Structures are given as structure tokens and as C-alpha cells.
């Protein structure tokens, strides 16, 4: 069993709402993510799962607890340590259009982050490497010359992944990475994520609401409700033997084509 890349202890995230008292979005959560594994975080809107994701990457301001990434406390990092952390741990968002600069071609988007992180000295050098990185996410080198609006949703999400990988990301948090995509494309991106985990040893957290996607992708899963973890464990266990009523409710509401058809056939027979 591999050691944890990320350990979170007693994490709290608090928002100050103007004119009101504070709201605690994440209320004391502890977990770890082992190297090369995928931790799924499931919950409905408002459960605090996105706040949790942002806090882990050091993007939230009022955070309590400990976040240890590869032996270092994220909340106590110096500027230079933080810069290295930002390179190694990255976020992939739901809306692939909103997370790309509309004025930068795909190749330039990759070249820019490599220059910012000091991985390429000149613009030309960076551009030359960009094509290789597009290859790792299954895009032809010709796509380097396309603007985001000239790409499909799935291709944009691939560019986002390449942008994270090209500066050496080892840890990714994907927040609903396929929710905005068509079903036939979702499968392509999910398979790509899985193969990045297998071939490049990427460690990641998958944030989402779809239990079937979790079943497919995650090794372990946390079920969140109102800022707290109500159930956790290996994904197969949690889905086949849920113990918390909320997990059971999520499971029974989870959509499934065959299940729905069988249930209706049974109802008609009665």
C-alpha cells in the first residue's frame, strides 16, 4: 500500500456573509489520498465539496486545520514553496471554456504556463514543447494553432489537462470535469483521466454528484452532506453496502436506464 501524498486533518472552511454571521462550509473533515490513487468526493450542491477542493489547493482564505502535501503544510508555505506547490497540484474545472483564455491558442496557453513556471526560457522553445504535451492528452499537434472557440468541449477539456500536466502536475483535483460535456464525449475524457492515473501515476481527487461516475473512476469515496463526511470507504463497499441514510437516498435516486426500465416493467406487472 502506498503512502499518502495528501493528508488533511480537521479541515474547516468559513465564509463571512455580508450582514450575516459566518457560514461554515466545511466542518472538520479529515482524510488522505494515497499516491497514484483517486479519491472521489460525492455530494449535492451546497454540501461543501467544492469549498473542500479549493481549500486543499490553498485557494480559500479562512481555513482551519492541517493540509499536508508530500510532507509540507500547505497553510504554512512560503511564497516559493507555494509556487512549487501550485505547479505540482492543480485544478481541472467543470466549464472547459471558462477556464481557458479565449485569446490564446491552445499551444500558446501551454507555452504561457511553462514560461511562468520557468520551465521554458523562450517563447519559441515553449511553443515547440507544447505540441508534445497535446499529444499526451490525445490531441494532434495541429490543435496547437486553434483558439478555444474552435475546439469542441471535449477537446477544450483535453487542453486544460495538458496545461496542468505540462508544468509537472502530480496531483489533480477535477471538479465535475465532465458534467458540461455530451455523454459520448464524457466517456472519452473519463477514460483519459483513468489512463493518466495508470500511466503517469497521477494522484487525484474527483469531485462530483454522479455515483456511477465514481464507481467507474474512484478507488475510495467520501460522501459529504452539509460540510461533513457522512460515509467513506472503498467505492465498491460504499455503493454495495451503504450504511448512512443519505448515501442510500443518493443511490436510490441515481439514474440508470436499465434499472428504471426494469422497475417500470415490474410496476406494470402488478
Amino acid at each position, binding site marked *: 500500500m502506498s503512502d499518502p501524498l495528501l493528508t488533511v486533518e480537521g479541515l474547516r472552511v468559513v465564509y463571512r456573509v455580508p450582514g450575516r454571521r459566518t457560514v461554515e462550509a466545511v466542518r472538520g473533515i479529515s482524510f488522505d489520498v494515497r499516491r497514484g490513487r483517486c479519491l472521489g468526493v460525492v455530494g*449535492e*450542491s451546497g454540501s461543501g465539496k467544492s469549498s473542500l477542493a479549493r481549500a486543499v489547493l490553498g485557494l480559500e482564505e479562512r481555513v482551519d486545520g492541517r493540509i499536508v502535501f508530500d510532507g509540507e503544510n500547505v497553510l504554512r508555505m512560503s511564497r516559493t514553496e507555494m509556487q512549487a506547490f501550485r505547479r505540482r497540484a492543480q485544478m481541472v474545472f467543470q466549464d472547459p471554456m471558462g477556464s481557458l483564455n479565449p485569446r490564446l491558442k491552445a499551444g500558446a496557453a501551454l507555452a504561457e504556463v511553462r514560461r511562468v513556471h520557468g520551465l521554458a526560457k523562450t517563447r519559441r522553445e515553449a511553443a515547440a514543447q507544447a505540441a508534445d504535451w497535446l499529444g499526451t492528452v490525445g490531441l494532434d499537434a495541429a490543435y496547437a494553432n486553434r483558439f478555444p472557440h474552435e475546439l*469542441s*468541449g*471535449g*477537446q477544450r477539456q483535453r487542453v486544460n489537462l495538458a496545461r496542468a500536466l505540462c508544468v509537472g502536475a502530480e496531483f489533480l483535483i477535477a471538479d465535475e470535469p465532465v458534467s458540461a460535456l*455530451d*455523454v*459520448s*464525449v*464524457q*466517456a*472519452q475524457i*473519463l*477514460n483519459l483521466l*483513468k489512463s493518466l492515473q495508470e500511466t503517469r501515476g497521477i494522484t487525484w481527487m474527483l469531485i462530483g*454528484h*454522479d*455515483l*456511477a*461516475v465514481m*464507481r*467507474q473512476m474512484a478507488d475510495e469515496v467520501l460522501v459529504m452532506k452539509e460540510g461533513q463526511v457522512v460515509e467513506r470507504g472503498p467505492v465498491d463497499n460504499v*455503493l454495495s453496502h451503504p450504511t448512512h441514510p443519505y448515501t442510500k*437516498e*443518493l*443511490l*436510490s*435516486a*441515481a*439514474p*440508470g*436506464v*436499465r*434499472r*428504471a*426500465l426494469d422497475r*417500470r*416493467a415490474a410496476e406494470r406487472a402488478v
Partner: protein
Amino acid sequence: MTASGLGVGYATGGGERLEVAGEVDLILRAGRTTALVGESGCGKSITAAALGGLLPRGMNRDRGEIRWAGGGARGPGKGLAYVFQDPGECLDPVFTIGNQIRESLPKEDRGRARERMVDLLRTVGFDDPERVLASYPHQLSGGMQQRAMLAMALAGRPRVLVADEPTTALDVTVQAKILRLLADLQRKADLAVLLITHNLAVVAEIADEIHVMYAGRIVESGPVEFLKNPRHPYVQGLLKALPRLDGAARLEGIEGSVPPLGRRPPGCRFHPRCALARAVCAEQMPTWTACGPGHRVACWACAEGGWA
């Protein structure tokens, strides 16, 4: 309501007609739910908008016809009502729910508006209609907002209710409740429901008949049970691409992506992504093949003498 050979065209700057959706045949029956399923850009929402004359500027329903049982042509508000995906955007934030439902009441109900509104809100599952009437949209959750939208849609006593992705913006547990409510309303009010969605699981949950669209054309139609054994390679692919709770280790996606308007291929529009495609598929648009009671498919491989 029957729509036959429906086509929607978009006039380009050069005066050319681009087909957004074409050859759409739909029969909507009272007490039944018909689903139009497809991925983004397949023309399902445009077809739905064409039924009520709600097409965006530049698009025209220029092919086919719509007939109502009992005769006469009707528009939105006259027999046809819509519910859309994002209730938060459809409701006006500065008016109370009561104010907004009142606007959709037909003249004959204006006299006893309050009573009728309370009735409507009870029908869509509110226990405290008085409080909801006085509420502003932001005081309601997403699921409650969608219920309020349904009440508004029902205010005009429609015969056809078009629900365009009615649950997509909602959480799964809420989604299930709204779907049950829709099925319930359809039965009680003897409504014909046209459900527009990309979500096959939602379809399996409440639809009676379904039509799967791809790139502007219906490719397979029939009773919802055909989803257990679909014939069209695209529909088979969609089902394999869905993650399942009892899922296999790896998903099978469909290679490539849906062609945008204006770059739709000749022949069968799915042929560039289809593993079964042969020469004829690139040349001629497939014709219908019957494959069961009420079940038909537009695919050369499934046609008589086909290879699937």
C-alpha cells in the same frame, strides 16, 4: 397533436438555407410522455421551440405541418405550455411567485385568481401554497422554483406540456422528485408531455415513446423499452458510454464529436463516427426500417439486406 415532416431552416448571410432539424415526425397523445433525446446540437430544443412558434430570430419552421386533434392551429399559451431547464433564469426576481402565476391565468380564471393559484400550487406538491405565493424566487430552492414554473405552465390548462431539460439543473434527489411529479401530473391532467433531454436515464424513468435525434434527424423511434435493445449504432454507443453503478472497468466512448451545424456530413450523418459504416452510408441518407411494433430505425446496416 401531430407534427409531420417538420423542418427548421436557418438563413445564412449568403441567402442559403441550413437545415437545423428536418423530417421530424411526432405524435403527442393525451396521457402519454414522448421524449426527444439527443446530445447538444442535435436539434431537439429547436424542434420543441418550433412547435410553439418560439424559434429564435433567423430560424423558420419552413417544412412540414402541425395538426391538433379537434382542428385549428394553436400557439404557445393556447394548448401548449413550456417548462425550461433553469427555473432561476425563467422567473423574474423582482416579482413574487403569486404575481407571476397570476399573469399566466386565462381570463376566465381571473375572478377567482387566488383560489385557482392555491389549487395549482397544491397540484405541484406544495403543502403551504399561501407562503409560496408571497415568496420571491430567491427564497425558494431550485426544486421549489421548478415546481412553481410547472404551476405557471399549468395555469393556462394546456393540452401539451413541453419540458425542456426540466431536471438538468437540479440535484439528483430533487431530480427524482420532479420526475415523479411530472409523471403524476401527466396522468391526472391527461396531459401530453413532450420531454426534451440529453439524459437517457431520465427518459427511461418516465417516457412512453422516445425519438433519438442525431445532428438534426431522428435516427431511432419507438416505445421506451427499445432502449434495452437498440438497433442504431449511435444509440447503442450512447448507452455503452454511460457510466453504470454495476459498471465495467472501462467505458466505451464514441470516437469524435457531434458535427456542428454547417459541417454535417452527407449521407447518414453518423457515418464518420460509426464502426459499421460502408460506402452507401456516406452517399445516401438512410430510410426507415421497421424493427418491431412502433419501433423504427434509420440505418443502412439495419435495413433489409443490411449487415448488422
